[in-house]
């Protein structure tokens, strides 16, 4: 399979090319955290009355009294062995915390992205096919509204309506009711784990908890996806081969899906990549509102506490995810459009 080989070589080349960027991210966040005001030793000293001696002792224990290049070298050496340092707030290794919390964030983001695509692709298609009609106007207005309302406002609105007034969804705190027995930890994705352990009641419960935060995030990114679908489809629908398909009497449904949408997919894929990366970062508001135990709220708490290691670990994680998403989008582009060269 020469195709697989090309894929593999390409992934390898990409990974190599992204190393300098990753190193840059590490150095930048490292320096930034130390330049920001706030001293973790003061924060973690036993109390507001702790003496200078106690603080200095803490600083020495944390390695903060050594020159910055040496601290950086220690940190980078640690990363090589998979050690991102320890969080002072949770007392756990950052690697462990991230492993525990990343599935929660990913589950939320992926569900939201899926919901958003389910909505935005049909809306975009309708909007493009009946461009400038009343339907198109309604959809564009909806997009504008969704884009203008910040996620924490829509989150509170959704909680008010669906939890407080109608009581359709469970108590909007956390991933799962604390009294529900957790499934055996296989993937960390609750919905998948409940399915794998064959627990439909638990699955329904987790899905209920996930629904509101996911809808909130989905509404937030509905607008860019719908607008891009509409714009991309409009361009494609004016091209010659759509005219050919109509001249050959192909059914409308087939023209829309196979001829128009397939060719409009390329810019939509790029947008999905961007939107996904944005969502991972923007999650923090939704995670806070719904007490969702994800990585973004973890990083925010650490930042407030001047806890260096988790913030650095979080930013490094985001950079790696971003690079992986871009690589995935590139590979998909090659599959979607045979003209995109594999080189």
């Amino acid at each position: 399979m020469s195709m697989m080989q090309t894929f593999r070589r390409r992934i390898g080349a990409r990974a190599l090319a992204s190393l300098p960027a990753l190193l840059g991210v590490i150095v930048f966040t490292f320096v930034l955290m130390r330049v920001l005001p706030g001293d973790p030793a003061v924060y973690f000293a036993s109390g507001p009355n702790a003496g200078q001696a106690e603080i200095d002792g803490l600083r020495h224990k944390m390695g903060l009294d050594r020159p910055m290049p040496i601290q950086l070298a220690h940190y980078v050496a640690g990363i090589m062995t998979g050690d991102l340092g320890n969080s002072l707030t949770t007392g756990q290794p950052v690697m462990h915390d991230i492993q525990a919390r990343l599935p929660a964030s990913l589950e939320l983001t992926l569900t939201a992205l899926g919901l958003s695509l389910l909505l935005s692709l049909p809306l975009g298609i309708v909007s493009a096919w009946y461009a400038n009609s009343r339907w198109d106007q309604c959809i564009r207005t909806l997009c504008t509204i969704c884009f203008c309302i910040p996620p924490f406002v829509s989150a509170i609105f959704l909680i008010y309506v669906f939890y407080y007034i109608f009581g359709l969804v469970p108590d909007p705190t956390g991933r799962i009711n604390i009294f529900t027995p957790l499934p055996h930890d296989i993937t960390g994705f609750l919905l998948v784990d409940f399915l794998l352990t064959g627990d439909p009641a638990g699955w329904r419960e987790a899905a209920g908890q996930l629904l509101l935060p996911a809808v909130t995030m989905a509404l937030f990114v509905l607008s860019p996806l719908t607008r891009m679908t509409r714009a991309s489809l409009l361009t494609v629908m004016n091209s010659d081969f759509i005219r050919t398909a109509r001249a050959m009497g192909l059914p409308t449904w087939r023209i829309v899906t196979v001829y128009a949408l397939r060719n409009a997919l390329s810019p939509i894929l790029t947008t999905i990549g961007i939107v996904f990366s944005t969502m991972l970062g923007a999650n923090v508001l939704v995670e806070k509102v719904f007490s969702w135990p994800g990585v973004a709220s973890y990083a925010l708490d650490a930042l407030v506490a001047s806890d260096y290691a988790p913030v650095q670990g979080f930013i490094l994680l985001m950079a790696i995810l971003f690079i992986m998403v871009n690589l995935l989008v590139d590979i998909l582009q090659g599959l979607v459009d045979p003209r995109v060269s594999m080189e």
Partner: protein
Amino acid sequence: MMRGILDIDALNVRFTGRNSHFDALRGVSLSLEQGRILGVVGESGSGKSVTGLSVMGLLPQQASITGGRIRFRDQDITARTPRHLRGASIAMVFQNPHAALNPTRRICDQLSDVIQAHESLDRGAIRQRVIHLLESVNFPDVSRRMGVYPHELSGGLCQRVMIAMAIACSPSVIIADEPTTGLDVLTQKAVMDLLFRLSRERAMSMMLITHDLGLAAQYCDSIAVMQKGTVVESGSPANIFSNPQHAYTQRLIEACTTMHPAQPHPAGKTTSRKRRPLLEVSNLRKRYANGHLAVDDVSFTIAPGESLGLIGESGSGKSTLSRLVGRLLDPDDGAISFEGRSIGTIGAHDFFRAEQRPHIQLVFQDAAGSLNPRFTAFDSIADPVRRLGPARDPGALRHHVEKCAADVGLAPALLDRYPHQLSGGQCARVGIARAISVDPKLLILDEPTAALDVLAQSEILALLERLRREKGMSYLFVSHDLHIVRMICDRMVILQNGKIVETGNCEEVFQNPRAPYTAQLLAAIPHFRPASQEAAAATGTEFAGS
């Protein structure tokens, strides 16, 4: 009036803009009879394509039929052409076959889509039909290449696939909208012969929409000439040519390069004296990164004031050669010298600094596309003067640009317009004015008229001929059209697969071609011979490779 298979009766089509409207068709009546070929001829904007699209029900949103009727057999299809007719009973072949095929779908799948849209067959039967269709359009190596994507095929092969799609469900009418525009002369003949043969074999009626009167005359049973949305004249090809009634038809016939042997042009005799050549190219070679040897050991010279034609079909390396000489590409091997000094060794990236840059200028194929869309015509013409010419104050620059514009017959009022506000012919004039604004000694013209319709083309050719005489420039004229080269050039070089197959005086080559390839090219030119027309077209050999 005789009823044909397709009748268009007093058709009016109106395009409505934001606060204006424009009547594209005004009372067009045409009748297509069973098994006959009707040529609809006119320049761009005459409404000939709109006529075809109205029949298919494919008019753009802003256009609407405001009067008249279209009848297919006994069915009125004026308001709407039902889906079961489109493709199955009336099919259409478009120009620009690369764009007209879905780029992300294999050609065999696109063909099956058409069959599936109109007939319910099982997979095996569809596959059989697809193979059979591709074979009947002489698609080479069907079993191995039916799974390719359109971008892997040449324009000629794409057009064959397009034709296979059109005949997939055995329609009774085919509308061919400029099916050979943009294809080189051998491919053009092959595609036209194919359409002709299929329509005769299957007793299909065909409406051939073209701007090339010569082409229409060779293949059609009757011709309708359109101008500004009306049919100004119609009749048999012989009648139209021997006795054109309308002034517009007469102009079209005069503009038609292929209709009558061109007179050897007057400047042709001036360059026979032995002088030091202006440009000397020896043993030039260029291989692209993908291993394709585009130019292989090519040598020629151009004398001062001489015009050399460079002929070849697409892929013959003629555009690469013109770019090498124009110093936009670096040769792998060989020498280029200009006025006795070597310029082949100056890198293409540095050549803009060389003192020879103003003396070698280019005019490109796509007139509109080679102008900066954010530059007005004035800026486009002034740009090389600002960069290469002597320093001029704004008043002198304005004066110089206006003089260049006047030289190419561009009205001063047009100088403030942007490319999208200019017609194709006007864009071509801007491109030429831009090239001559720095007084070059050698002008490289890469198919400068390929995108223009016949009338605009003949005007541009006359302009180029006049400019050369007035300014004493030399031309390297790249084209696939032998007749145009014959009108403009003293000598011609014929390229095939990057190699020179024949060089010589134009008239000699025309009278007495030595290489078999040249003879093939000459035979492929549409010749209108009223008496022997049908016989010639029927026995015309097809060239499968394209």
